[in-house]
């Protein structure tokens, strides 16, 4: 069964259905959108069950000619890494829709348009993870900017259109650099036995090391902007602050993962030699991201900006894990992508509810929420603890794996990165203390606690965070073979653990 095409078609079908509704039926549009994403989630779970964990080849492969003149195919397929990211996308989207039930109402356009954009974005997110043809990947990579752009600019708050434009221009610049590299790959493949965009075929290309370095940079800068890695991160805080909480979850949780996923799938696979050349630089940038993001987060006064900065720090860990070139690092990085999706979702959704109730996103305006709205406060607290990687919550496992994986090859970087954990405690616990504890700030006395819909939305997120914290095996078992495969294809083997002199 063509699972991948099916799960990509479901949201698109739902979007078409919503498009036929009259403007006035906004409730029906919401219900349809929720229903569609739930069906897509169910289909994705069914696909995950069918996935053969030990098989490192691409699975659920489909391939049809698309533009024959250029050797472009509609080719999809997943390995363990792509699968968990698709699963994450499928699970997060219905949660986002349910959690942000009334998000679309402050927008420029109708509720209908909002959900059409969300569903189209979901299709493209699936496509971007599933594509095994570089051209197809690029098409999804660029085309998904359009719905996000309209989601931020049309339904966000504050300086929304400026933030949307900044987001789009940064991404387009990166995308065009990648396009130049893709064109070069296309021509090279034509010279070496026929035009193709198949990743496996492209990884066999022979090129001079100068060419390889330049092409690598074209891809890497695009992904570093997307991820975002220091110094390409400046668009993120603005976009995350202006977008609705649900859009922010999709932006940081799903879209930004395309950057780190792309590094594994494209940079490492197609340019193994250039990867080795640039690894020291990228490790350095990752460590800077971890610390810089953390410091900015400590200084942040706005909740949404705070979460965006923490993400910069977390993405630093993910790239560190990827470029450490050990299986633990790789497994940790992919698990981190999955977990970060859920912990950021929890933070953003609860922060969104706090902000919409209080009418302000400044941390100092909150205080004593623990007494007024205990459920909301506890949810935020757990999400925060997951973000700072408390043992027993999901992020701990991934952060630990990344650090262990890095230490065996780059001990100095690992040691410095570990300080990121200390800083994480600061940037989470300070706002928790200010917003949740202490005396109730004037204006907060009558805030309402979470209602049933919101509880239903946040419960599965927290459940995933806690369950994967205690028992990460279900996800790790999917990731590990794929991660090991990437490392062995790169020609690396894990360094033997060294014992300190005994």
């Amino acid at each position, binding site marked *: 069964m063509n699972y991948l095409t099916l799960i990509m078609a479901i949201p698109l079908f739902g979007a078409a259905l919503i498009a036929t509704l009259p403007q006035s039926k906004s409730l029906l549009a919401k219900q349809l959108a929720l229903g569609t994403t739930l069906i897509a989630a169910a289909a994705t779970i069914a696909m995950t069950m069918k996935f053969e964990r030990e098989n490192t080849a691409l699975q659920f492969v489909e391939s049809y000619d698309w*533009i024959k003149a250029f050797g472009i195919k509609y080719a999809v397929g997943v390995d363990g890494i792509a699968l968990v990211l698709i699963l994450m996308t499928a699970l997060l989207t219905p949660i986002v829709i349910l959690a942000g039930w009334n998000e679309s109402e402050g927008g420029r356009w109708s509720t209908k348009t909002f959900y059409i954009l969300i569903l189209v974005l979901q299709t493209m997110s699936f496509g971007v993870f599933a594509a095994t043809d570089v051209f197809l990947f690029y098409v*999804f990579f660029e085309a998904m*900017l359009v719905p996000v752009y309209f989601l931020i600019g049309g339904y966000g708050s504050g300086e929304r259109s400026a933030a949307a*434009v900044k987001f789009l*221009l940064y991404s387009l610049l990166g995308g*065009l650099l990648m396009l130049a590299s893709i064109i070069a790959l296309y*021509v090279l493949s034509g010279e070496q036995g026929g035009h193709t965009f198949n990743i496996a075929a492209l990884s066999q290309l022979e090129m001079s090391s100068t060419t390889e370095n330049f092409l690598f940079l074209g891809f890497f800068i695009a992904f570093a902007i997307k991820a975002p890695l220091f110094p390409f991160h400046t668009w993120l805080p603005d976009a995350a602050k202006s977008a609705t909480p649900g859009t922010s979850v999709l932006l940081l949780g799903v879209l930004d993962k395309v950057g780190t996923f792309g590094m594994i799938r494209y940079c490492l696979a197609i340019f193994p030699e250039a990867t080795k050349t640039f690894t020291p630089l990228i490790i350095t940038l990752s460590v800077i991201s971890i610390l810089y993001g953390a410091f900015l987060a400590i200084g942040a006064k706005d909740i949404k900006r705070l979460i965006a900065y923490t993400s910069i720090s977390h993405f630093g860990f993910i790239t560190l894990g990827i470029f450490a070139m050990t299986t633990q690092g790789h497994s940790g990085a992919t698990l981190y992508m999955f977990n970060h999706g859920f912990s950021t979702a929890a933070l953003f959704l609860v922060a969104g509810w706090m902000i919409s109730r209080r009418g302000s996103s400044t941390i100092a305006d909150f205080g004593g929420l623990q007494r007024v709205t205990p459920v909301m406060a506890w949810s935020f607290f757990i999400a925060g603890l997951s973000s700072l990687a408390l043992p027993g919550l999901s992020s701990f496992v991934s952060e630990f794996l990344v650090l262990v994986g890095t230490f065996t090859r780059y001990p100095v970087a690992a040691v410095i990165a570990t300080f990121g954990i200390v800083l994480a405690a600061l940037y989470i616990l300070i706002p928790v203390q200010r917003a949740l504890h202490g005396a109730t700030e004037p204006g907060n006395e009558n805030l309402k606690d979470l209602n049933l819909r919101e509880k239903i939305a946040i419960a599965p997120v927290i459940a995933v965070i806690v369950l994967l914290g205690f028992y990460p095996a279900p996800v790790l078992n999917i990731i590990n073979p794929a991660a090991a495969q990437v490392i062995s294809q790169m020609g690396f083997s894990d360094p033997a653990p060294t014992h300190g002199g005994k």
Partner: protein
Amino acid sequence: MSEFISPVLSYSLLSPILVVFGGAIIGVLIEAFAAKSVRPVAQISVTIGTLVLSLVQVWRIRDSGSTSAAMGSVIIDGPGVLLQASILIIAILAVFLIADTENFAAAAAAIPGSPEERESIARGQQMTEVFPLTLFAVAGMLLFPIASDLITLFVALEVLSLPLYLMAGLSRRRRLLSQESALKYFLLGAFSSAFFLFGAAYLYGYSGSVTFGGIRTAVIGGTGNDVFLLVGIAFLSIGLLFKVGAVPFHAWSPDVYQGAPTPVTAFMAAATKVAAFGAMLRIYYTSFANAEWSWRPLLVDIAIITMVFGSLVAIAQRDVKRMLAYSSIAHAGFLLAGVIALNKAGLDASVYYLFAYGVATVGAFAVVTLVRDSAGEVTDLNRWAGLGKRSPWVATSFATFLLAFAGIPLTSGFIGKFSIFSAAYEGGATAVVIAGVLSSAIAAFFYIRVIVLMFFSDPLEDATSVVIPSALTRITVLFSVAVTIFLGVFPSPLLDFISNIAIFIR
């Protein structure tokens, strides 16, 4: 004295051009003898009928390559036929816009503000000369890309240019601006024609032949005086680069785009580019191909400057027609990449790009004709603010065209850009590709700014409104949107068709 040989003409192969000439002459007769009340309907039907008939003829001759259709003066081959078809489709779409005669002067010959003009407006006169003029221009454009000697090329150039000079001056509103643009276009066009002729003379001096084949043989033989060849190529190129609006020969285009009636701008921007690039591709790919060392480096520089300049200056524009003019300059730079590529892929890509870009351009200008206030079209971009709120469909169509110009995937512009840049890279012009990608990023900025303005800004409180499109204008916009998206998602049929038949006969 040599014996006079009576010319042998293949009328069926020339029929696309002859049909259009015939239609134009009928149009002139209608203008002279038909009653005023029936003129508009008669003119529109004759014009559309002629163009459709011509398109049918083009389809019928698509596989019949021939160098002897007119005593070696024209070559009928795949690229020529494809470009003719593109020109005709674009012309039909543009005529649909021209049919909305609201945009045209009541009496073109009257001096702006004169009593005669007031009188003719008061009498509700509407001129219809524009239709035969359009057909004459189309006939010249059809001849331009298939001409295979310098004399025919020059005649075609003049036949297509002279009606356009007149048409640029026909605007009903802002008459002075329109007439100024017509004069500017004419004077600079006359200059460039002179350069063109000068270059042609040198090439004749170099090769002793005016046919492309003769020049090609001389270039391959390499026995002529290279100075003549270089001067000839340089001056001929100036004439052609002027027509496509490449920097530094672009100065006319923003003024003319702005001053001319918008339907004429649409026609000129799209169809002239196809014709001029068609001729350019033929002459560079056949006659000058073996002298690439002499023109390619310079053309690379011109392409890079054109892309970067067009994209940068477009950012500063506050008028939608001027913005589109600079955008078309940038696109001329991208298209030059296809000439520089000098390979089969470059030819295919250029033909595809010209068609996709031409259709999107007509569509974009069609939208411009719809945004009006009581004094006519509103081209000030600030007053387009909030268009998405008031007329979502019109704004969405315009956004589609802008995204295609910006080369966003799933639009025809992206496939065009990809194919032309990959051909250029294959041809070794890495610098052009890098400049193209960077200027695309710059260009994206001003396209997106317009989208922001339409969708994310609140409407100004003034009387800017979108008129209900006439049925014909609606067809143009819808067709252009459909083609733009279809060619972005399923480009294969057209790409395969082009690559199968686009082979120059030398």
